[in-house]
């Protein structure tokens, strides 16, 4: 027997620790003696109680001598990376937008503003069909994205109609999601698209007053009322409505939920929501400034308990998608996996929505005869954290996967490098908050 490489001890008071195992995603409470035993690997001599040993083994805190946990990690990492259960195509029909949100990482469609032309559109549809066959997946997700995708309603319609038909003919499940600001979702768009759409995702920036300050038209007018009126066209339809509610604190969320209730949204059976936080700095800072990222993550974690309280108090819990803090990250980002594609209006392919349009991050080009991948594609796909400096022996690896490849590229000029970001500084807090959330009585006195 030996101790796992992936044990982290987080102190909860003077004498006790949460022992979290990253590879096995398990948690135990241990005292100082047990901590020392496990840290020193004195397992046979010090732990005589068979049932204690069994528990430690089941939790992956101790492992058999012949197990190479790095290989176990690599095996699971590669399966996640190379055996996708579905293919994802995020299609940017246009970079242009009719709003001018101050925090927009795409510059509100004023830096890049091209839209997909008809010829490119046909090539993109063809690319999706061929690539799905090559990926061997039974299910695909298409996200219509932008800019504001509904500025190109014809493209959205062509993609949705053609690929839904193709999915039916080929026994492939096709889920299409429209990510829109909601201002152009008029009766015509709803009539054309809803037969094919699984969901429409719309963002609200807090209660009307604050929303109208940030999500406004180019002339400065607010969009809240228009959005609510438009999404009501979908109320009760078979297309789901997913609201992203950007909130600063629980007061803002409370006011927003009250307003939605007043407008009748609480009774829509096809409506659900999740909460998020706006980063008020530009993309480059987001990718290169750890301190700003850390500040954001801390804010999200800190306001989480109070947001939950408001949601329950106001009776919205059945519609709430709670962010799963427990999620393991064997691969650092869903988009780093095989079978994930971001296609911009020019037919260029990226691995990340945030970098779409920036040719330094381009991984391929859709051409007449098919797709031409470049070195970045292979570099990202063959990225192996066990080969990256600092990762092979890192206790956090199974929850980080080597970090964001785009950040690594921006900071270290290579996709094949690690990027820790604030992960090490946030993980203990996240573990404790999670445990406090699911075992409130046990951790009632714990201050995080």
């Amino acid at each position: 027997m030996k101790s796992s490489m992936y044990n982290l001890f987080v102190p909860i008071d003077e004498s006790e620790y949460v022992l979290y195992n990253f590879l096995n995603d398990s948690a135990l409470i241990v005292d100082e003696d047990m901590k020392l035993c496990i840290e020193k690997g004195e397992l046979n001599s010090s732990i005589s109680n068979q049932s204690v040993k069994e528990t430690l083994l089941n939790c992956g805190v101790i492992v058999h001598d012949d197990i190479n946990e790095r290989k176990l990690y690599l095996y699971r990492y590669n399966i996640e990376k190379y055996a996708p259960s579905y293919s994802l195509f995020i299609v940017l029909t246009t970079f242009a937008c009719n709003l001018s949100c101050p925090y927009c990482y795409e510059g509100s469609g004023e830096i890049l503003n091209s839209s997909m032309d008809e010829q490119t559109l046909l090539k993109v549809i063809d690319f999706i069909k061929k690539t799905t066959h090559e990926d061997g997946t039974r299910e695909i997700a298409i996200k219509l994205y932008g800019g504001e995708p509904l500025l190109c309603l014809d493209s959205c319609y062509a993609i949705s109609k053609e690929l839904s038909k193709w999915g039916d003919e080929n026994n492939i499940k096709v889920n299409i999601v429209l990510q829109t600001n909601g201002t152009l979702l008029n009766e015509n768009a709803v009539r054309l698209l809803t037969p094919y759409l699984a969901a429409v995702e719309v963002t609200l920036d807090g209660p009307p007053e604050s929303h109208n300050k940030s999500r406004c038209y180019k002339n400065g007018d607010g969009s809240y009322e228009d959005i609510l009126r438009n999404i009501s066209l979908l109320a009760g339809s078979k297309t789901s409505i997913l609201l992203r509610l950007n909130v600063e604190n629980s007061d803002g969320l409370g006011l927003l939920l009250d307003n939605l209730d007043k407008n009748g949204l609480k009774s829509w059976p096809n409506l659900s929501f999740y909460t998020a936080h706006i980063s008020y700095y530009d993309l480059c800072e987001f990718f290169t400034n750890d301190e700003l990222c850390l500040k954001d993550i801390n804010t999200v974690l800190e306001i989480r308990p109070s947001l939950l309280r408001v949601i329950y108090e106001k009776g919205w819990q059945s519609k709430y998608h709670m962010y799963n803090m427990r999620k393991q990250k064997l691969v650092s980002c869903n988009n780093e996996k095989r079978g994930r594609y971001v296609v911009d209006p020019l037919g260029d392919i990226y691995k990340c929505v945030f970098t779409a349009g920036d040719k330094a991050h381009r991984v391929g080009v859709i051409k007449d005869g098919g797709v031409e991948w470049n070195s970045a594609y292979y570099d990202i796909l063959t990225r192996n954290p066990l080969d990256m400096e600092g990762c092979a022996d890192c206790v956090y690896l199974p929850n980080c996967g080597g970090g964001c490849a785009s950040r690594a590229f921006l900071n270290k000029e290579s996709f094949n490098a690690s990027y820790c970001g604030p992960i090490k500084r946030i993980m203990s807090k996240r573990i404790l908050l999670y445990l406090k959330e699911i075992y409130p009585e046990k951790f009632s006195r714990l201050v995080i």
Partner: protein
Amino acid sequence: MKSSIYNICIQTDGCNSIIFNALKGTSILVDSEMKTAIESNSLEMICPEDLFTLVDSGFLVEDDLDERNVYAFEHNQNKYSTDISSFLVLPTLSCNLSCPYCYEDSLNISRSRSMDRNIAENVTNFIKNQVMENHSRSVVLGLYGGEPLLESDLCIQIAESISKWTMSRGLNYFSALTTNGTMLSQETFDKLRPFISSVHFTLDGPEEEHNKMRFYKGGRGTYSDLMKAISLAGESNIHLTVRIHIGDRTGQGDFAKVLGDLEAIGLRGRPRTYLYFMPIEPKDECFNTSSKKSLRRKLKNIELLPCIWNMARELGWGESLHVDAGQEHSLLPFSRLPCGFLKNGCYVIDPSARLYSCPSVAGIERYSVGSISQDGTAIWLPSYYDAITASPTDATACKDCSHLPLCNGGCPVRPSSAQEPDGCHLKEFYNKKILTHLAHKYPTLIWGT
């Protein structure tokens, strides 16, 4: 632009050479000037038109492209993707024949063990669980042994269950029975037929040769019984694969005789009929594939194949041969894996529900990499993770080798004692394969030695 690291240059005569690109599977005949230009990266010597052709075919690549990553990507994609899940089930290790070359004998496998019905139930549950976990679109079931038809009821039980289940889920299903043919009665075939897609038979040459090698325990040869079985299966529209062994003494005339017998039972021109020729290989061939001794034997066999193919083609069997580059039975199949079995989503299952990475060691517990529990889930041993995560891109001898996309590093689970005792001799082997393949495909080109 720069030259690909996977260009293999083989001199054909005094002034011409073949350059074969192992990653793309392309080949080009060049004069010494072009050869030098490509090999020494002196691309300014090449005219724009030729440059375009060389880039298009992968002989030249972009400066920033690390082709090792392209290979690693393709290797991993082949190894880990599970659009197909495949299961090779051995319902029994017993056999009614005593073929002298059978590897199962030499490995001292206990020949009396068969699967019991409960284990067969666990195995079918495991198959279903695993297909769902793998998100596969297709399921391949192989029934293998020993002689699987000694347990024909088990074969039917498993194949029927999986066939019906895949149909209810809208999954593709393909199943293959590998049999010595001696136990395939009409009744057994009729019962199995709805649930199997293909039958795989083996012939050891013409009647006289075959009967010396494949005989019943008492010594009686199996040739005529086997022909009856092939004929019986051939009357249906099932896929038929006939493997014909090349023995040390089998000559051209012998193959013609076998083909004549197969023609007599109606196989020539029959759709869905696949024919391939294979040298009989030593029991531990996979483990010693890069040794000098193995090389000499292999080089000889490679020379034989094109002659046999040509003869088969002249006799009207062209449609049943699948020997073009990239096809399963060709000299250059272009797989990115050293072995089709050591792959995520591929499982070899013995009668005790133990799991293996290789059919030739199935039944020997010390080689097992896991087992199927009663609830139909796999319990893997550390050796499974060692074997599956082993990558030739990590091996010093392989990672920069121009031939890597052809050989893929060889069997990663072979005992360390069998690893290149006298260095790797596979380059010569693959060069021979390339030339033989090209000579067969383009017979009008004039070759040097």
